[in-house]
């Protein structure tokens, strides 16, 4: 029972990390039709800025440093995403395949630059002392960092939903995901919505980068690899363009993966891909996705 609970909560924590990557991917795809292979590099850029902040700027590792690292990581990754969108993506307006291809190129170049500067070895990211504590639920000892990941993901989910529901730009984004041509035809400037979505997606990925580094005990240019692929899987299962769908799918995948890996190491990735195939056969538009007209 203890192990069951431990694995379950770790799974939800892992799902939270997947969600941080997937939320941006999903919105960017839903609004602009861009499959963003550079999203992994947003995560890495955020992680490196977080590392820079918590080792070069401040020299104490407490809770505030970590929160600062998350914010710095998020903002820097968001700005980087904005730069990518402005300089590269918008130049390839409506050429969806080329946009996907060019993000592959960006991912390669960013990976090479970071590897050239910092090497591919893990660099330790300082974490607050309480990170190694455990919380007792019944007789299970759950590492406390899992709850942090879940909390950050929930905060981002709620603020994402709030932004999409209650602000004007959110309204434009939602309308754009539904039918971008119509929004443009009505004379509304969707470019601002594009930039917002890229910044927000980059921000979430950057925060995710700092958390992923904390989870895997360090920063390296290679940390994004599996998270990007899981992000894609989450987006497809959850439904393109649906943030709550991504959240649901991320949690399901995180939990199933952890249980399967406990049963037999390596089985998790396999089960997730079968889940993906199953969802596609039964519901090609994903769990909460809408069929586009």
């Amino acid at each position, binding site marked *: 029972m203890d192990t069951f609970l431990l694995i379950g909560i770790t799974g939800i924590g892992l799902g939270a990390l997947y969600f941080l990557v997937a939320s941006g991917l999903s919105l960017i795809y839903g609004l602009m039709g861009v499959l963003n292979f550079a999203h992994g590099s947003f995560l890495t850029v955020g992680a490196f800025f977080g590392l820079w902040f918590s080792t070069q700027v401040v020299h104490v590792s407490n809770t505030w440093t970590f929160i600062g690292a998350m914010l710095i990581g998020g903002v820097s990754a968001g700005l980087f995403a904005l730069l990518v969108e402005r300089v590269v993506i918008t130049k390839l307006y409506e050429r969806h395949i080329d946009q996907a291809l060019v993000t592959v190129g960006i991912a390669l170049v960013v990976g090479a630059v970071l590897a050239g500067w910092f090497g591919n070895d893990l660099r330790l990211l300082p974490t607050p002392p309480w990170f190694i504590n455990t919380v007792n639920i019944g007789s299970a000892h759950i590492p406390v960092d899992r709850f942090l990941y879940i909390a950050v993901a929930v905060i981002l989910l709620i603020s994402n939903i709030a932004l999409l529901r209650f602000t004007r730009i959110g309204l434009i984004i939602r309308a754009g995901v539904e039918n971008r041509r119509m929004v443009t035809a009505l004379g509304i400037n969707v470019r601002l919505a594009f930039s917002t979505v890229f910044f927000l997606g980059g921000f979430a990925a950057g925060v995710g980068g700092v958390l992923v580094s904390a989870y895997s005990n360090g920063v390296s240019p290679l940390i994004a690899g599996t998270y990007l692929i899981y992000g894609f*899987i989450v987006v497809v299962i959850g439904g393109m363009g649906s943030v709550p769908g991504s959240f649901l799918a991320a949690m399901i995948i995180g939990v199933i993966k952890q249980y399967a890996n406990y049963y037999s190491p390596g089985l998790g990735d396999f089960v997730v891909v079968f889940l993906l195939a199953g969802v596609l056969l039964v519901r090609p538009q994903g769990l909460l996705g809408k069929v586009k007209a």
Partner: protein
Amino acid sequence: MTLRWKYSRPLLAILVALLFSAPFLGSNPLSHPGLQQTMAVAFLYGALALTYDLLFGYTGLLSFGHALFFASGMYFAVLFINHDVLVWWLAAIAAVALSTILAILIGSASLRTGGITFAMVTLAFAEAGHVVISRNFGGLTNGENGIALNADKVPQIFIGVFNTKYLFWIALATLVFVYLVIWWLTESSAGRVFAALRDNETRVSVLGLKPSRFKLLSFVIAASLASFIGVVMLMVSGSAAPRFASSDVTISLLLMVILGGAITRWGAVIGGIIYSVATTRLQDFSQSTALHSIPQIIRGPISEPTFTLGLIFIFVVMFAPGGLSGAYYALRLKVISRK
């Protein structure tokens, strides 16, 4: 009006004949085993890029899972050979057959989606395959270390530095074979349907043809050719390794096809050969002393081959979408229209 230069085919035939006889023609660069090995690998990547061009360029299917079939051919073959299940040539046939079945299964599941979703789904399948191989799932693949081909169980002419020229020939023959198959296929009536699917899928179904069947046909043919190339790569490199299954391979195939130019056949081949040689050469270059005077902040990225290739790739996608072959045809058009 055709843009093809009328002497291009005879010249190509002469070039292939020259390459075939190069290891015999006295002392030339290709009579050294080192370059023979490099070129054998480059030919195979050229062939693999060509199969990807069939999928991505001709049929318009952006698959991120092509490396899976390349690796599956390789791994099935090495397992059958090393465990004495089948004699080497039967093992090769069985590996291609099993990979084809795998391609039919994965293809029919992922082709229920289209466009960008298809790219993600194929990526997920390939990544699952990569995990199975690299984590030693089921205890057969020996994880990250890969499996060395047991030298006693293949004919001796494939083994040893002195025999590298035979591997060179086999790789070149594989490239020619794959080229001929894809040439024949893309000029056949099925090939016309592939192109039509890429340009306007609705129209194909209005004409009474089933798009899903032709997509699956293209997917499966490309995959089984890739698995065959995987078997040959096993012979040339002497081992099966998880890096051949990683999505990086598919991404480099994409780079090869884009750099060389899609939908021209020879563009993909040239792209594959140049890319393969360039990654080897750029790695040597990064270790050279000429770079030491450059400050680390610039030297670091330059010493990574993916930096240069990635930048060129971004440039080609944004400003020269036809790649090398596209540039060549644009030049031909100018020459012809001047007459």
